[in-house]
């Protein structure tokens, strides 16, 4: 439904967005994943119509949206800071878009009630914005964006200001709600766990470009670049010499950087593997994150059970977990 | 948004409608200063006689009135101007803002105050700027001063308040009185007065209402008008039999206020009629109580309080308006050097 074609947005002599291309299908949730400053928020704002691209086009189905002002695009955007209207109470905030649509009073009231219960805020209608907690404000913002039934909902780092426990719960709620409503959405985040949780497809962004786009498992197992791999949380990058070798062994056929995914890195009892020294071990809910040094190379992985620092272990690397990066 | 635009449109329509009301032909406009007023019913009599209404416009003090009149002389808003006095007269005449009109009623006015021989302006009223004194501040031990000479006597040191002749009408009048008395020696007199600790204010209001005893101040001598004592009686808070102030009749300068037909008026006849009317007994007899001035007409009778308490000044100081206009800027500059610096 949404198609972004070759969008370029200039800023200060360079481009924040440089030939961005991607699509969002009907009812699909696409996550824009990338580190801060990669242009993902700008892309969102460009889709929303808040920024004007220098070149490129934005389509909704067969309709071109590039020149359409934001209020006529029918897209919703939920800001990172929620941007709730301080002069209106909760109900009035949610009602805002309905009021603009010139719905009747009864219809509006019904819809507000419906949304309040959708985000589990029944009875909050007359609360003042200043009295809301972070999570509540977040839900109000979501309800407000959903109220006019946008064709596309965009969420800009919605969890950024929330604590972890709240984040996990809200993420589940949002994910469930969006799927229930079959809501097409673009979700911006720098957190790959969040992305994996909610995304139908993930678009990895770097330096104003979409590096890679695919389902969570596709992009996770086959990142196309180092940046893409990093934003997915991968850590084991190894530089190969001209013959494709490194201290661990032959990992490729020519020079370049390869990624060893954590899932292909295991500690084996036999003496056959590669010897390495544990340089750090952090216990985290059932697993231990370990860092192992082999020569000058440091590799991270997680194992079941515990492990001590400076222990010598044997590593096994499965070939399928070695990904050559561009 | 539409409502907002409608509101704005309505506001502007209302404003334009109220302000652009047609000016009627049967109206004569009198431009004057802020101290002008005449009782209700007086101008109605004029309307009854001539069928013409009088619209009064005020333009601030005398200086402002004159400046306005000169500025608008190419497209005058008024038909008659009243309130230019003899200290400003020559400037008005030089600017050629008045048309010649010799009123038949001038026969009732003494020749002495008909300063313009060409009759471009007609005297309407006069008053005397004199030193007033607070009676209770003086006694047989310290009698009030008699004349200008006495004021530089150290007995009266620190007692007198005068206004700056550069910013006040009575201030200028009093200054002119000293020039009329001392000629070129006025500078010596003022230097002596300065040494005698004279207080100078910017205007009449702060002299009389702040510095003078009557206004709560501490100075028992102030430059004011010969008509001030009767005003103290008329406008007393609790009725009094006689004024608390007196006038030094040998220190007075005569101010004469003139009216004139505006050069270029479209209502020449009505304007001339208004001048005649302003010399009629109806108008003239209302002047004392409404403006605290003396009527120019010999036939007008004074109201009782005025007749009783207003000092009639026998031989006030006067100066030719032409001489005043020619020298005033130099004089006042010299005065500033001597008294204020």
């Amino acid at each position, binding site marked *: 439904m949404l198609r972004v074609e070759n969008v370029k947005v200039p800023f200060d002599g360079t481009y924040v967005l440089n030939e961005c291309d991607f699509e969002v299908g009907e009812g699909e949730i696409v996550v824009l994943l990338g580190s801060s400053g990669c242009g993902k928020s700008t892309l969102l704002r460009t889709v929303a119509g*808040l920024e004007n691209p220098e070149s490129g086009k934005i389509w909704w189905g067969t309709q071109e949206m590039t020149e359409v002002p934001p209020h006529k695009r029918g897209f919703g*955007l939920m800001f990172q800071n929620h941007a709730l209207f301080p002069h209106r109470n909760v109900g009035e905030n949610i009602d805002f878009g309905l009021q603009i649509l010139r719905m009747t009073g009864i219809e509006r009231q019904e819809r507000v009630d419906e949304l309040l219960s959708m985000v589990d805020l029944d009875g909050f209608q007359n609360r003042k914005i200043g009295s809301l907690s972070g999570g509540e404000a977040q839900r109000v913002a979501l309800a407000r964006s959903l109220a006019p039934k946008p064709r596309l909902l965009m969420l800009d780092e919605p969890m950024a200001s929330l604590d972890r426990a709240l984040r996990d719960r809200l993420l589940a709620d949002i994910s469930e709600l969006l799927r229930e409503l079959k809501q097409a959405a673009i979700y911006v985040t720098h957190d790959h766990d969040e992305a994996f949780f909610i995304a139908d497809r993930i678009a990895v962004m770097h330096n104003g470009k979409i590096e890679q786009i695919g389902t969570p498992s596709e992009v996770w197992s086959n990142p196309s670049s180092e940046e893409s791999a990093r934003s997915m949380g991968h850590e084991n990058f190894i530089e190969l010499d001209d013959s494709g070798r490194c201290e661990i062994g032959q990992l490729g056929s020519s020079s370049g950087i390869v990624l060893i995914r954590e899932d292909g890195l295991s500690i084996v009892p036999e003496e056959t593997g590669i010897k390495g020294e544990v340089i750090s071990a952090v216990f985290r809910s059932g697993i231990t994150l370990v860092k192992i040094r082999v020569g000058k190379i440091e590799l991270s992985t997680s194992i079941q059970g515990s492990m001590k620092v400076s222990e010598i272990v044997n590593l096994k690397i499965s070939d399928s977990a070695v990904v050559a990066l561009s | 948004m539409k409502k907002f635009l409608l509101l704005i449109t309505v506001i502007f329509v209302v404003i334009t409608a109220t302000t652009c009301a047609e000016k009627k032909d049967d109206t004569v406009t009198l431009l004057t200063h802020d101290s002008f007023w005449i009782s209700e019913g007086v101008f109605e009599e004029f309307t009854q006689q001539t069928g013409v209404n009088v619209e009064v416009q005020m333009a601030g003090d005398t200086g402002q009135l004159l400046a306005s009149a000169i500025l608008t002389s190419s497209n005058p808003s008024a038909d008659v101007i009243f309130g230019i006095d003899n200290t400003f007269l020559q400037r008005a005449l030089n600017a050629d803002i008045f048309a010649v009109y010799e009123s038949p009623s001038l026969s009732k006015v003494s020749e002495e105050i008909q300063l313009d021989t060409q009759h471009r302006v007609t005297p309407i009223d006069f008053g005397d700027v004199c030193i007033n004194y607070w009676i209770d501040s003086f006694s047989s031990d310290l009698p009030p001063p008699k004349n200008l000479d006495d004021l530089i006597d150290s007995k009266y040191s620190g007692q007198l308040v005068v206004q700056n002749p550069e*910013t006040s009408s009575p201030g200028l009048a009093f200054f002119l009185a000293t020039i009329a008395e001392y000629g070129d020696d006025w500078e010596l007199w003022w230097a002596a007065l300065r040494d005698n600790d004279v207080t100078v204010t910017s205007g009449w209001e702060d002299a009389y209402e702040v510095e003078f005893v009557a206004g709560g101040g501490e100075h028992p001598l102030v430059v004011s008008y010969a008509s001030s004592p009767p005003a103290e009686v*008329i406008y007393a*808070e609790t009725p009094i039999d006689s004024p608390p102030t007196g006038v030094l009749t040998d220190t007075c300068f005569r101010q004469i206020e003139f009216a004139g037909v505006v050069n270029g008026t479209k209502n020449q006849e009505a304007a001339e009629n208004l001048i005649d009317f302003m010399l009629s007994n109806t108008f003239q007899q209302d002047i004392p109580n409404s403006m605290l001035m003396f009527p120019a007409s010999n036939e007008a009778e004074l109201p009782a309080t005025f007749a009783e308490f207003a000092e009639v000044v026998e031989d006030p100081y006067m100066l030719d308006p032409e001489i005043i206009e020619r020298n005033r800027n130099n004089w006042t500059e010299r005065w500033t050097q001597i008294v204020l610096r």
Partner: protein
Amino acid sequence: MNPQKRFVWAFLFFLPVLFVGVFFYWPLLKIFSHTLDGERINEFWSYLSSKPFRQIAWFTIWQAFLSTVCTMMLALPAAYLVARFSFPGKKLFQALTTIPFVLPTVVAAGAFMALFQRFGLDQGMFRLHHTVWALLLAHIFFNLAIVVRTVGSFWAGLDPRVEEQAKILGAAPWHIFRKITLPRLVPALAAAASVVFVFCLTSFGIVLLLGGPTRATIETEIWRQAVWRGDISVASVLAVIQLGAVMVMVLIMNFLQKRQAVVESKVELNPERASRKLLVGNILLLGILVGLPIVILVERAIGVGDGYSFQNFSAMADRISLVPLSSLAALKNSLLFAVVAAVLAALLGGVASFFVVHGNRWLSNFLDFGMMLPLGVSAVVLGFGMLISLDTPPLDLRSSWILVPIAHALLGIPFVMRTVIPTLRRIDPSLRESASLLGASPSKVTKYIDFPIAFRALGVGAAFAFAISIGEFGATSFLPRSPDRLTAPLVLFRLLGAPGEALRGQAMALAVTLMVITAATVILIEGSVFKRETIRSDF
């Protein structure tokens, strides 16, 4: 944007532009072109390079600068109190600080003089009367409200948690104020300071009455040249110079205001209760500065003979034979003018503020600057300018009463803008963007977001415009008028212009009534505005 909407926006933009254009810039240009005679250039030059003029110019700037600094310093504690604390009678306190604003200069000068006498400051070693100090004191008295109000309302919107954080980090209070609070206050401080400076620069009555005859500022010099010497050309030259000084000041302040503008989301915290020390300190300070002169006025108004009575008030309905109007009728005129002026100022100032904040940079600077200048022009010159420019139909307004509220609105607009602009600037852009993404067109964004949020500031601005109008004397006295349309301050001046206890008493009663009306109106306007905020903003 379709052509129809484009037209509406253009129309709205041109409304304030047209207003100041027709009623300010055109008259000004006309009087300048009428009087500035190139042949006299040498004469002008020698006047401008003369010692007396240099003294006047120096004194003008010097006293305005010092007055502004003093006012700012004395008003800050009160602004802090109003911004951060709740205490019983807060609204009354705020309204009371506004009172001096409406006092006609003559009356205030009288009150100060009486004050000096009572405390033995009228002569001797500690003489204040006819000194620069009296001038400064009066300027502080008159301008305190501007700072307390504009800075106070801006301050209230700053997040206090920032200061709290600094406190936790161990910073000393003075350090917190200097390093944390002050920098964030700069936009409001600059806005207030520019208005106060311009007011003091062009102050007229105070200089004449309290400064005494030896002290002249450019403004009084303009008046002396134009009215007393009849030399409007020199007056115009001076007016141009004064306008230039004002322009420089306004430019500097606009720059500061913009550079320092920070977007801070407003937090709604329950204001703390004021500590007794702070409250007492502030009330004492303002009590001395503002309260004492006012108390003296009230005493004069009710003092009759040796006792007290309300006879001066009950006599207000009767016309005194020297004055065309009864005091009551004059009050009615003043009220009407003030309402018209406040509505005009709020409407046009509000629209202009919006374009200053949301228009493109060129437009914004143009408006921000252009609408401010009326505060800085000599009333004498503008009055004469109006006289010779508004003299042909359909704008033959020379004899129309509407000229008075129009002139007052010109003075009120900058106040409305100074209060509304900082508030509009502080609206988080994401609020407006959110609204727009929820389907609101630009005009609806203005209606539902900007307007309700800035409504309180607009109310404060309108209240200021009202107060300015009701007490305005300078500009009014230079406009033509008909006797039945005299304003209360003009009648008051006339009452003080003739001898007699009764006239003086009546003048004081009129002054007290003016103060009461203003305070009541300010409370009323703001009261309804504050209530409004909690009700639905949907209208």
